[in-house]
């Protein structure tokens, strides 16, 4: 009992230690995974930002270059040659909001698409000539910060001066709407993702904001609440043209945001693209990784468990089958052991019967020999009287007969068994056979004071039998009856016809036979009780011989008995059928 408790404690301690170790490892690896994913995520965000920035740079620069090519070396060309290209450029290179030509006097003379070109608009008259003058004087492209357009939204004004030799011809003004750029490069970034993108110029003005459309055109720095230093810092970095990632706390969504930012350098314009994503996104990512891993682990464990369970069930079934088989085999073995033990017992009994028989036979054979020998030796003596001589000769002759009978008795069973007994069937009247038999035992019965009673029906049919064999059977039964019946007993012989056969019954008022021995009295060498039969004598072969003879006659022999009251031996014979 104590040992069991100790074992449980040890197992529990081991379990706790294992759980602790696993948990610790889990935390450690979780931290590492978190760092790794965070790093990867930041890099990915930065890459996205860079990609967007590069896209914008390329797109915008390409547009400017096209206009510059158009404006360069326009010597000999008329203005109409230049403006004639506007349509082609506008249509072939998407992205322009409008392309206009302003002549040297600052008046818009042509524009494409025509409906959005304010032809006739005089810059000087409207006092809007600052940038125009600057482009003309510096003789280089001037790109304005995105400014609100008449039609709404922001637009970048690209002023490209056109000179013919040293003669100023005018300025090509191309307008690119900020939305054209952001729709193309920023809008798609955040499709199907949380977070938002924004684009600022170097003053902190919002050019694009994925979530707060109303903020576009306004300055973030002015919108900032005072305590949001972290974002201010980011914005400053952006305005400086740096790139990187940083974290700030967003008051609006009340969540930590990871911002990846990259500069857009478009000629002298410095913008900055930023992708802002809630920090929880990383957790989501980790979580999704974990979820996938857990799912995988779960499936693997489930498969292993199911497999093990299947195996266990299979083995246990197998085991049960085996157990059942072993049980049944054991049962069989026990059964056959029992049978063997019984057979063994029976063999031992048989062996004892045989050795008893041999001992008895040797005794029975030696007794007459002893009598004969002694008698013969007495006869040798010269001076014996005649009476004694006669006695001795009688003894010798009687014992010779006795021994002959004994030898015949011993030989009969083996003759019967080997089927060498030859029967000479004839039509026999039981009357005469029974009378002969009774006559031959009458003296013995008389000596014991036993009455012999013969009751035969007058019209008893004749039987088919061998007289020489049948007579000893009846004599044997009668002798047995006399042997086991005490003085003044009674013995009766009756006969009757039954089912086409003749039945003979020899009854006595003797000691009887125990019920369990009734069948065995016909066994060879069998004697019911050695002390009884010792007293009565006999070889134990008589009934076996009777049985053999009766069965050779196609009859049956059996015994009925009540212990202490007497026995009846019954045999049947076939009727003589002609």
């Amino acid at each position: 009992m104590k040992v069991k408790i100790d074992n449980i404690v040890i197992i529990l301690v081991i379990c706790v230690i294992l759980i602790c170790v696993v948990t610790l490892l889990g935390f450690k690896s979780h931290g590492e995974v978190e760092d790794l994913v965070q790093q990867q995520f930041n890099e990915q965000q930065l890459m996205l930002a860079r990609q967007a920035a590069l896209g914008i740079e390329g797109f915008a620069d390409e547009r400017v270059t096209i206009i510059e090519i158009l404006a360069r070396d326009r010597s000999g060309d008329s203005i109409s040659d230049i403006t004639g290209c506007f349509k082609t450029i506008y249509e072939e290179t998407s992205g322009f909001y409008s392309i206009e030509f302003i002549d040297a006097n600052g008046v818009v003379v042509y524009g494409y698409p025509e409906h959005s070109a304010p032809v006739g608009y005089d810059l000087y008259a409207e006092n809007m000539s600052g940038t125009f003058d600057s482009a003309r004087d510096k003789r280089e492209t001037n790109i304005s910060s995105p400014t609100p357009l008449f039609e709404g939204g922001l637009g970048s004004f690209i002023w490209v001066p056109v000179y013919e030799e040293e003669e100023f011809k005018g300025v090509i003004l191309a307008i690119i709407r900020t939305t054209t750029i952001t729709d193309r490069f920023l809008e798609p970034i955040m499709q199907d993702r949380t977070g938002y993108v924004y684009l600022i110029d170097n003053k902190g003005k919002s050019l694009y904001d994925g979530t707060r459309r109303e903020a576009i055109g306004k300055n973030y720095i002015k919108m900032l609440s005072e305590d949001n230093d972290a974002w201010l810092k980011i914005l400053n970095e952006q305005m400086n043209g740096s790139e990187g990632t940083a974290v700030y706390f967003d008051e609006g969504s009340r969540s930590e945001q990871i911002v990846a930012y990259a500069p857009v350098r478009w000629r002298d314009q410095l913008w900055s693209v930023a992708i802002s994503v809630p920090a929880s996104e990383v957790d989501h990512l980790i979580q999704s990784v974990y979820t996938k891993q857990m799912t995988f682990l779960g499936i693997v464990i489930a498969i292993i468990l199911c497999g093990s369970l299947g195996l266990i069930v299979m083995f246990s079934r197998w085991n049960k089958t085996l157990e059942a088989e072993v049980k049944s085999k054991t049962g069989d073995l026990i059964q056959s052991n029992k049978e063997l033990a019984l057979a063994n017992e029976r063999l031992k009994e048989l062996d004892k019967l045989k050795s008893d028989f041999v001992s008895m036979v040797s005794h029975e054979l030696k007794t007459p020999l002893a009598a004969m020998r002694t008698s013969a030796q007495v006869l040798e003596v010269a001076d014996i009287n005649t009476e004694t001589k006669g006695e001795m000769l009688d003894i010798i002759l009687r014992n010779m007969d006795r021994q002959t009978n004994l030898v015949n008795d011993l030989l009969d069973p083996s003759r019967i068994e080997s089927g060498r007994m030859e029967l000479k069937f004839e039509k026999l009247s039981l009357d005469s056979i029974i009378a002969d038999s009774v006559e031959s035992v009458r003296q013995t019965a008389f000596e014991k004071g036993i009455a012999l009673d013969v009751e035969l029906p007058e019209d008893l049919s004749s039987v088919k039998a061998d007289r020489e064999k049948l007579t000893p059977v009846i004599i044997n039964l009668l002798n047995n009856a006399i042997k086991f019946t005490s003085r003044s007993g009674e013995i009766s012989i009756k006969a009757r016809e039954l089912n086409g056969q003749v039945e003979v019954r020899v009854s006595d008022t003797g000691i009887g036979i125990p019920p369990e021995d009734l069948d065995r009295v016909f066994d060879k060498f069998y004697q019911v009780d050695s002390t009884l039969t010792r007293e009565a004598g006999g070889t134990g072969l008589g009934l076996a011989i009777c049985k053999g003879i009766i069965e050779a006659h196609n009859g049956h022999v059996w015994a009925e008995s009540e212990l202490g009251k007497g026995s009846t031996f019954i045999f049947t014979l076939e009727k003589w059928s002609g």
Partner: protein
Amino acid sequence: MRLDTNDREIVEMLQKDATLSYGVIAERLGLTEREVEERISRLSDIRTKILIVDDEPDTVLPLKRALEIENFNVIEAQDGVEALERVSAETPDLILLDLMLPKLNGFEVCQRLKQDEATSSIPIIMLTAKSETSDKIEGIEIGADDYVTKPFNLDELKARIKAVLRRTAP
């Protein structure tokens, strides 16, 4: 031969007056005349008395005749119980005892005789068809003085009887 009280009285009376009639003696001792006659004839028989115990009459008779020729007084018994009765009544000088006897077998008879002080000195020769050594050993162990197997040589048996008698003679 051992004598009981009545035997001694008869001997005493006859020694004093040899002419006493059987009737007078019978009257004095409260016995019948016939009993007295039997006792006197027994007492006057000085031959050695041998008891043969065997249930086979055909074995007993030739042996009896042979021993009678040798001038032995032979008496017989057919079973164990009768043997014990005859031993106590007749006090034989030697017993030839068969082993396979009805009622009481030879071993039992031998054992009882040897356990009883009155009969333990009577020599016993076992006479049987059982020839196994174990039977011989058992017989001799319980006190038999010799063991002869059937069928025996009559001369040998007679020699053995004489030897045993010589050996156990007082």
